[in-house]
């Protein structure tokens, strides 16, 4: 789960990291009022969970409240990579002297958290990594000790930070790691961390991604989820405890197991089609869950055929079949469907599906092939 810039920065501030004293607005008039209070130039920033908002025109400098209002009017409602901007952050503008990158993420290979820093802040760290990898400093963090002060000093030294800023930097780096750990984050970054007035550090922009598996112990963070920013189908899927990711192909896939779901998606491609989604119903799904999954698939207008691939273990094929039927009783559709059920109670499952008008297959390859053909015939209609 991703946090907005303002959510991340407000959380940073709880850990003592200095941030600009801005506020969020959902209307242009609010933006005007905030800019008035700040009394000075402000930056109006789209709060949207997509990269590249700057290039899309989602970040604008305003010299006065009137201009802030004008920019907010333009930005609110803007569509950035498919997401509608519903909120802006109005921050006091500052004169930036230096831009630093500072982030924490997991190094899967080293199996530790790693603090990443660079004197080349203000641009995506991936770009720095590609263009000037020597400018990236990485320090692994002992999970039992946290970031130690000397480690932060080593970073400050290696990115060439002026010595008068070290104390602040050590405090900010320590706070950032603590915030990361306390939040069970998988990524958190300040980019840029800027130097202003010659001797002050300020976290100008912030990002956090949280470990979904750990949200159970962070109810306050879990509440920050912005469902406006999810595809509605993904919200629906999450509520039914389904793993669903919308893609832009035409073959709806319903599979038990994440690896098998990916393999199934891949096979539609292999046989000339393209998957409309990733959907894992998990292990031991009951019929109501299966029905919810099918409703989500069929709600996607791009879907031209549906492929059920169930390898029954804990999951019972008859339960899956019942769920499919129950959804079909509700949603009337002419989309052709291909079912491949193998394993626990597969015969019962197939018997149940015999009531529906469904293409069947024995192997996964056969099923994938038939779903591609079915999608093609739908498109041609």
């Amino acid at each position: 789960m991703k946090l907005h810039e303002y959510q991340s920065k407000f959380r940073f501030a709880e850990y003592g990291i200095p941030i600009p004293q801005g506020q969020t607005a959902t209307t242009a008039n609010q933006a005007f009022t905030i800019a008035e209070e700040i009394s000075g130039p402000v930056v109006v920033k789209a709060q949207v969970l997509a990269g590249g908002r700057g290039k899309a025109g989602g970040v604008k400098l305003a010299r006065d409240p009137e201009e802030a209002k004008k920019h907010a009017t333009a930005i609110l409602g803007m569509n950035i990579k498919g997401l509608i901007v519903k909120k802006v952050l109005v921050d006091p503008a500052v004169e930036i002297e230096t831009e630093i990158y500072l982030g924490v993420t997991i190094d899967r290979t080293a199996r530790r958290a790693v603090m990443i820093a660079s004197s080349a802040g203000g641009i995506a760290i991936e770009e720095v990594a590609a263009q000037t990898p020597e400018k990236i400093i990485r320090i692994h963090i002992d999970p039992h000790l946290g970031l130690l002060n000397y480690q932060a000093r080593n970073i400050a030294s290696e990115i060439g930070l002026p010595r008068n800023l070290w104390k602040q930097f050590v405090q900010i780096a320590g706070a950032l790691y603590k915030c990361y750990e306390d939040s069970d984050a998988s990524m958190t970054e300040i980019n840029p961390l800027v130097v202003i007035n010659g001797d002050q550090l300020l976290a100008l922009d912030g990002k956090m991604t949280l470990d979904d598996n750990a949200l159970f112990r962070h109810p306050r963070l879990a509440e920050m989820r912005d469902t406006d920013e999810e595809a509605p189908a993904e919200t629906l899927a999450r509520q039914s405890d389904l793993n669903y990711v919308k893609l832009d192909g035409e073959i709806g896939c319903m599979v038990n197991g994440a690896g098998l779901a990916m393999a199934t998606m891949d096979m539609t491609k292999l046989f000339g089609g393209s998957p409309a989604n990733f959907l894992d119903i998990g292990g031991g799904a009951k019929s109501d869950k299966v029905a919810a999954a099918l409703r989500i698939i069929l709600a996607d207008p791009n879907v031209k055929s549906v492929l059920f691939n169930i390898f029954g273990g804990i999951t019972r094929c008859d339960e899956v079949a019942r769920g499919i039927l129950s959804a079909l009783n509700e949603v009337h559709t002419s989309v052709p469907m291909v079912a491949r059920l193998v394993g626990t109670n597969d015969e019962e499952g197939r018997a149940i599906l015999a009531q529906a008008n469904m293409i069947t297959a024995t192997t996964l390859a056969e099923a994938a092939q038939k779903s591609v053909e079915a999608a093609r015939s739908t498109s041609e209609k």
Partner: protein
Amino acid sequence: MSILVNKDTRLIVQGITGREGAFHTEQAIAYGTNIVGGVTPGKGGEWVGKIPVFDTVKTAVEATEANCSVIYVPASYTSDAILEAADAGIPLIVAITEGVPVLDMIKVRVILEQKGIRLVGPNCPGLLTPQEAKVGIMPGHIAMPGNIGVVSRSGTLTYEVVYALTTHGMGQTTCVGIGGDPIIGTGFIDVLAMFEDDPVTEKIVMIGEIGGTDEEEAARFIAETMTKPIVAFIAGRTAPPNKRMGHAGAIIEGTTGTADSKIKALEQVGVKVAQHPEQIPELLAGL
């Protein structure tokens, strides 16, 4: 022969009285696995069928001399359960539970490494040595004894592959599900090394997926160390970047973790990579 588990495995089940634990215990016993006890705090002295339940792993180990534990407790209790088993001296711990926070696992791994204890999982289907021991949730009937070693990050995709092998008359030494999380106990390299050392295993199937760089590291290890032929399959060629594909570990971050990178790395070191799971038996036969 086999790796990790066999007839001599003395298994205890942590979370034996839970829904999952009870169901899979029954299945494992039916398969012939030597389950010697179960653990549920507060239910010591009860029985699950013929299996005695203990309050703590310590008392269970004292009473049963267990040498392996399988964990079915909820995600929020899993790291405690793993450390409890480790502290009680269990040398092989298999954690089935899905949804364990990553930072928990980072901490747990440090401790297990210090103690030299092997963890398989979490978020894995477990281990299956056909006709000897079923430790976890892999369906037993799809497997048969033979000389193919199987190692996989996935669950049902593994069953699909094992089923295809069995259908083609290719039996398995041991099937190992290492799990789909970003931080796991046992990785490809560990299992490949064990298969290399197992005299019965002749060929190996390795099933990877997007996310991380474990497959790339395995490729380096294969080039340096492995002599037995390997067929691989990598799931997720059609997965988009920055989206988690079910498994917490299956996510392409930036430019790392793509299926293409993994396939390329494996092919470069002589591993045959299948286009789809059902192609694996055919490729194995050609080696």
